């Protein structure tokens, strides 16, 4: 005998099922002429537990059905022979029908409607157009100013690399020493090994210095592949 598992019953069905339907479902595997009341009461309680677990409201008539089933079960167990089961079933049907009748007539409220949302869109006025033009011009002016500022910044950055100052000559000397040290025993050194922080600013500065050392004939630079690493050797090593 395969028992009905509430967990396998689709939620929608559970929610909308009538009490008779539930009883039918719960007794589907039983002999209609020999319903095991004890077992049915047990299953009905499981069913209510399952509903509670799903946080569904449990209509009063279901609780009532369950209580009547439990009473039938106890009657059954308590010497049942003298109890006329058909009377009990009649009683069950009557009370359940009465309660269900109350439940089936939900108190209809006066019908509400939610507000119908409107999104009134107004036409644009000449004043809006005038303000839009002023705003567009301001934005456009700001954009132009930003562009000029950026160009100025670029110039400032360029002045940072200005050649000829003491510092710069020193830096070149230090870099050349570093390259020679890194090259001791090696044929080439990667450009990236010359970097300490590796940020964009340092990379540009170092690249500029490397180009100058190459231009001065101290080192040779080459790339094995397009956009690949820059490899540095001492001039005339090849």
């Amino acid at each position, binding site marked *: 005998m395969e028992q009905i598992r509430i967990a396998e019953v689709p939620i929608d069905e559970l929610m909308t099922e009538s009490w008779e339907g539930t009883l039918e479902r719960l007794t589907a595997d039983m002999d209609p002429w020999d319903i095991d009341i004890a077992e049915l009461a047990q299953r009905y309680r499981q069913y209510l537990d399952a509903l509670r677990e799903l946080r569904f409201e449990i*209509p009063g008539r279901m609780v009532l059905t369950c209580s009547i089933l439990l009473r039938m079960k106890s009657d059954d167990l308590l010497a049942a022979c003298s109890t006329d089961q058909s009377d009990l079933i009649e009683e069950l049907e009557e009370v359940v029908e009465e309660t269900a009748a109350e439940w089936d007539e939900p108190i209809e409220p006066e019908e509400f*409607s939610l*507000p*119908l949302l409107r999104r009134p869109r107004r036409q644009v006025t000449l004043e809006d157009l005038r303000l839009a033009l002023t705003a567009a011009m301001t934005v456009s002016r700001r954009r132009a100013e930003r562009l000029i500022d950026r160009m100025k910044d670029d110039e400032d950055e360029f002045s940072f690399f200005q050649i000829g100052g003491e510092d710069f000559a020193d830096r070149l000397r230090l870099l050349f020493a570093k390259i020679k040290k890194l090259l001791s025993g090696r044929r080439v050194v990667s450009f990236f090994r010359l970097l300490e922080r590796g940020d964009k600013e340092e990379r540009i500065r170092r690249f500029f210095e490397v180009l100058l050392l190459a231009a001065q004939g101290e080192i040779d630079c080459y790339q094995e592949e397009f956009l690949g690493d820059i490899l540095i050797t001492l001039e005339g090593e090849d």
Partner: protein
Amino acid sequence: MQSQEDQGKDRDKGLLEAALFLAAKPLSRTKVAKILGDVSLTYVDCLLDELQEGLAAPGHGVKLHREEGKALLQVKHGYIDAVAHLAPHQDIPRPVLRSLAVIAYNHPMTQADLVKARGNKAYGHVQELIERGLVRAKEHGRTLLLHVTDEFLRYFGLSSIEEFRFHIELPSSENEADKMNR
């Protein structure tokens, strides 16, 4: 020929209609008075009465709803179902909307009371409304207590649940001229 006075009144009536047409929220009498150029509230009431009466005639699909000194144009109840789909945000099925309306009107309300009012299908509606973030539920004894959320107010462009009550349509109010003058 029209007198100058009549022309002035026509202008004011036009302005009142334009203002109510553009405003998505109820307009207070004082606001209307200001728009008309700081006129008296008695005059505003007079114009509102005329407009209300005019719109109440057959052949109009819109009516003037007045409550607590505020006024708003609304679609007449009998036409709502035929035109509701034209309004923005009508993606919630009507039965679910009705359950939402009941919750909002009784806010906060227990799920048990909602089911009494709307039947067993309301369980599903509550689930859908929670998923949409329009309603939240708190345990409340053996049932749930349902609240509408801030998202609900945002969705309907309302500033408070009281404003929602202003919008609420009760079909019986359609023909009650005296109610409108409250």
